[in-house]
């Protein structure tokens, strides 16, 4: 029994160390963002939060249009999420509950895309976006997420188990057409699935870097991630100010994630284990 308890304590010690490593960057970001750079980069450094947060934010707002870029990111992330949820759930519902000629072939093609590294297409994507006059606009950021093979694949699995065929058949008997079956039967039944996919898409859109970096050629219209990277290039030695920006940029996501985390993690692992 004693050996058992010792093993348990060792387990918690290792897992606890992992938690500290997970959380430490967030703590240290707070420390850096609330102190002066000089206080952090002396020996020994200051290890606790200080009172300079507002000064640092002031300098941040003087150097870049922080909230403007955050506003752009919020608009892009929200629009992307609504768009992808609608397009993916409608397509997934069709694949899950309807047989039509070419269905299996089209779904196999979709899965093949899932396997392809996305960066293989990025150069022509930029050329196409430029030809369509979308380079430099936020609208260009809405297109690539739509071809989200993972979203449709995951959603199809979800709808197959969450929406019973009997329910669809009953709706058909009542004379409900295709769209009404989707909107009135499927959507209410798959709300938790939509919540998962919504967070997944929102986080990806919020954090995306390479595509905005390539396509947003107009320096007046940038996203939060681009603003952060530029801040570092221009003011890399003012660490407290850069970290104040970094902190403000990740707080919204951390709050959203913490709020939905339990269900989100359970759903995120389902796809992998089933394969």
């Amino acid at each position: 029994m004693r050996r058992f308890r010792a093993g348990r304590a060792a387990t918690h010690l290792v897992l606890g160390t992992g938690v500290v490593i997970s959380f430490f960057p967030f703590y240290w970001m707070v420390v850096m963002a609330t102190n002066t750079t000089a206080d952090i980069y002396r020996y020994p450094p200051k290890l606790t939060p200080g009172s300079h947060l507002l000064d640092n934010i002031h300098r941040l707002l003087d150097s870049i249009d922080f909230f403007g870029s955050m506003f752009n990111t919020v608009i892009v992330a929200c629009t992307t999420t609504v768009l992808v949820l609608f397009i993916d759930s409608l397509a997934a519902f069709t694949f899950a509950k309807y047989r039509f000629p070419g269905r299996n072939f089209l779904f196999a093609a979709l899965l093949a895309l899932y396997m392809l590294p996305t960066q293989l297409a990025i150069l022509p994507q930029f050329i196409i976006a430029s030809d369509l006059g979308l380079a430099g606009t936020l609208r260009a950021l809405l297109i690539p997420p739509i071809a989200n093979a993972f979203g449709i694949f995951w959603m199809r699995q979800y709808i197959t188990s969450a929406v019973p065929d009997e329910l669809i058949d009953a709706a058909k008997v009542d004379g409900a057409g295709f769209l009404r079956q989707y909107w009135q039967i499927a959507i209410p039944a798959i709300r938790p699935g939509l919540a998962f996919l919504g967070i997944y898409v929102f986080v990806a859109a919020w954090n995306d870097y390479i595509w905005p970096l390539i396509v947003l050629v107009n320096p007046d219209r940038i996203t939060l991630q681009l603003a952060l990277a530029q801040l570092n290039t221009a003011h890399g030695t003012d660490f407290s100010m850069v970290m104040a920006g970094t902190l403000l940029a990740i707080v919204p996501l951390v709050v959203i994630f913490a709020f939905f985390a339990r269900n989100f993690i359970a759903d995120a692992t389902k796809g992998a284990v089933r394969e």
Partner: protein
Amino acid sequence: MRRTGIVSYWRQYLAISPFFLVFVGFNLIPVFFTLYLAFQRWDGLGDMQFAGLDQFKFLIHDPTFWLSVRNTIIIWVLGTFPMLFVALIIAVMLNAGVRFTPFYRIAYFLPNVTSLVAVALFFFAIFSSSNGLVNAVLHLLHLPQVQWLQNPFAIKVVIALLMSWQWTGYNAIIYLAGLQTIPSQLYEAAQLDGAGPVRMFRHITVPLLRPIILFTLIVSTVTGLQSFTEPQVLFGSTASVNPNSGGPGQAGLTMMLYFYHQAFDNNDYGYGAAIVWALFLLILLFVVINWRLVARSERRGTR
């Protein structure tokens, strides 16, 4: 008859069409267009010139390209294998029925949803100066200081650590989900036979988890070999103004970053396309190697 059959499904085709329009127009055609571009000379403005195999010939003799291949592979190895091993250990511990599992899960998953740019800026801040946090800790332990972002190998270690911080928890939680499908009777029977924890790990856990280990390996290969944001943000600068793109000695220049410089800083679309196709072949090669290794150990395991 057959045609009216297909036409009567127009609602279904319409429902899946937004996805497939973008899929074809923005993914499928671009992939082949990238291949086409790799045989051209083009700066995106003037006329395209057919270049035959010139881009690939140049690629084979370009020392910077081979440097980027080496960097990419070293960073991937450093950032993947220790990370997956630690993730497996964490998962086994979480599966041992410890309390607070939901709390642990959230804590371990959090790094994965944090923006890569933010994490790179944070790593820059703690590793960059000789007065940064990491060197302060080394000083406290009476260890020699390291110029982390100057030394070619240390640069790769920093990037690998950054990847590991973001992905260990994610993989641990994937493993945990797999472990929970292994029936506990197997462990009980092994325990009756006198097997210790290490033997049970090697002979029950690892073999039964093999499909999931393969899944995590492939995901890590595909994402790890495409690393771009880490070096781009850590050493943020364009090739045209700074010959040291990818850091001092170009030690952090990954293939994706080299592609980005050639295509978007030098407007050399043909050469960029050749680099990105080489990257794709490398990813394919490594995925096949992973697959074969895992499949072979499976055959050996059942013998």
